[in-house]
């Protein structure tokens, strides 16, 4: 009996602890110190806010609601209103990190958004804070190279070849991420780093369907420090696929114009056949009238 009581106490204690932990989930979540201090290399301007808004509405509103409206979905732990004071008290780096990495029910957006797009969302969230002043990184003395990118496809090994130069000099150790542009989002092909020759290889699934010529719209981003570049182009690296209309051919479900021929013939032949006979009789009634005099 005594033993039992002890267990009960322990369970009660645990439950209380869990409850408290739950309530504080939001404030408990701390980004690593290094991430916490991270600053946006971009100036939060109207364009960024606008783009951030689109991304936010597509990906965040369903849980967090509209910032400042306190209409987030009741969940445990509560997702919180990004417009609220407690939320805004976090550093840019902290918000950036949490969106990127996720935790528990908060999805990880690392694969969905590139860094610059994540900063767009931060810019949008910050636009609800009148008192916010963007802290910008100290750039003095930093030389930022301008990258040029060249894309090609090596069909022998099914790899996307990314070459990165800055003023014709190959750039090593540049992080490259390659995406296929879908209708509603971009699909991560893979991430890689350039070698000493400034070349990075990204695996391409040969079964990926392209257009008739096997072309597909790819987007490659390259970053190293503050240097970044982006290139989007059509590349013949996918499986050539013929696209068919979903309504090709004649079916029972087609529109009347595309009805099966046999059905149309059957219908019209029988309807017109019967009505022809009926009209023959109706007009024949005149003959009855004519025949009133015995011949």
């Amino acid at each position, binding site marked *: 009996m005594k033993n039992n009581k002890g267990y009960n106490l322990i369970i009660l204690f645990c439950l209380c602890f869990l409850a408290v932990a739950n309530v504080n989930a939001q404030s408990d979540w701390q980004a690593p110190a290094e991430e916490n201090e991270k600053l946006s290399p971009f100036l939060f301007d109207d364009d960024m806010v606008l783009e951030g808004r689109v991304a936010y509405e597509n990906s965040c509103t369903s849980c967090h609601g509209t910032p400042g409206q306190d209409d987030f979905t009741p969940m445990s732990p509560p997702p919180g209103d990004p417009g609220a004071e407690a939320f805004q008290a976090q550093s840019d780096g902290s918000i950036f990190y949490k969106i990127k990495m996720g935790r528990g029910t908060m999805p990880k957006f690392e694969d969905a958004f590139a860094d610059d797009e994540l900063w767009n969302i931060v810019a949008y969230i910050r636009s609800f804070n009148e008192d916010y002043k963007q802290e910008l990184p100290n750039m003095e003395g930093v030389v930022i190279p301008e990258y040029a990118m060249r894309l090609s496809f090596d069909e022998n090994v099914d790899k996307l070849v990314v070459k990165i130069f800055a003023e014709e000099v190959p750039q090593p150790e540049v992080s490259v991420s390659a995406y296929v542009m879908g209708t509603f989002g971009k699909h991560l092909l893979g991430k890689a780093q350039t070698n000493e020759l400034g070349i990075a290889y990204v695996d391409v699934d040969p079964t990926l369907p392209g257009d008739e010529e096997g072309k597909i719209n790819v987007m490659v981003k390259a970053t190293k420090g503050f240097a970044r570049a982006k290139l989007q182009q059509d590349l013949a690296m996918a499986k050539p696929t013929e696209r068919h209309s979903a309504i090709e051919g004649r079916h*029972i479900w087609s529109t*009347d114009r595309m*009805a099966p021929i046999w059905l149309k013939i059957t219908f019209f032949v029988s309807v017109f056949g019967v*009505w022809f*006979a*009926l009209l023959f009789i109706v007009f024949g*009634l005149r003959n009855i009238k004519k025949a*009133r*005099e015995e011949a």
Partner: protein
Amino acid sequence: MNETITKGHFSEEQIDKDLLKNVNWGGKFKLWMGFLTVSLIICLYYYYQQLQNGLGVTGLHDYVSWGIYISNFVFFVATSLIGMLVSSVLGMMKVSWVRPVARIAELVAVAFAMVAGLIIITDMGRPDRLLNVFIHGRVQSPIVWDIAVVVTYVVISALLLYIPMLPDIALCRDKLNNVPKWQQKMYKSLSLGWNSTAKQFRLMNRYTRILLVLIIPIALSIHTVTSWLFAMTLRSGWDSPIFGPYFVSGAFVAGCAAVIIAMFFFRNNYKLKEYITADHFDRMGKLLVLVALVYVYFNINEIIVPGYKANTADAKHVHEMLYGHDSVMFWLVQLGGLVVPFLLILFKPMRKPLPLTIISLVILAGAWFKRVLIVVPTQLAPYYPIQNVPEGWTGYSPTTPEVAITVASFILVLMIITVLAKLFPVVPIWEVKEDMNHKNN
């Protein structure tokens, strides 16, 4: 069967007198028509309500979107099929006893077929867009076939009523001098100058024969296509390849019953006991036995086959019918409305005019509810559960406007039959005379 069964021998004058007697506008008729008209106006008020407020005034909802309007439509189409059986099939087999009742069967067919077309319009959410069916009609849809066939059937039935009636219209033109002017004029133009010449008879017989042949495929297809409204879907309970013949056999049962009732009514009210005899009732009763037997056979197939296999959805549907929610109605209709009457009319005393008429009334009512059983329960057993909707949507009960509009369709049928039976003789006079002469010679 091939003997004529009109009793006794009458002079031609007597026959004319007896059979033309009903062509008048008596007080009884006016009272009856007045009653029908007032009832119809009340019912039309409900239709006006439905036009104003939408189909929401009915008990229909997303899960039972076809209710008693469609059941009633199927019933009407079914009943109208009898015209084909009696006048065409039996007529062409030279079964001469049906000749005095053939016109009654044709009257029933025309009235029910005409009103069936109207019922479909009352079921439409947008009756104002009826013309779309003709502008944008899709040959793949059974509805387009149905409309084409119903219209054709109405026209053929009307012609089949009219053309063999030409000699009788001429008789009305010649003998009825005390009817209103417009009526005399109407007889004159409708009789097409009928003069009983041999050529006129020849032409009339030829056209009638063409119609009699034509009406068989059209009548079969009108009800087969109507059954396709259900059988062409993937719903368990409807998804059945025997629906066509099942419907056709059921149609003959309902039609026979309706004709027997009409025969009884005309016989008593128009004093036609000598022309529509007890023998006619006996034979119509035997015909009813035959068609009911076929129908019972189809019913057994329709339940036993899915019930035996009991695949998930069908088993649920059959179970609901036999033991569940719809079982009371099911057993009442199947036993009370079909099997018991069928057993009763096996006995000769039950085929006397009065008992047979009462049994026919029961059969006809059973036939109507049978159509409800075909249409409604299938929809109440969808493949996916009925959730997040008002509680009432798990069942179906027709509302007052819905019932009133359905009643209106019956009133219309009665009006059409009444008026036609007052304008023209209900028993073909010239055929009776011909028979009589044939017998006398």
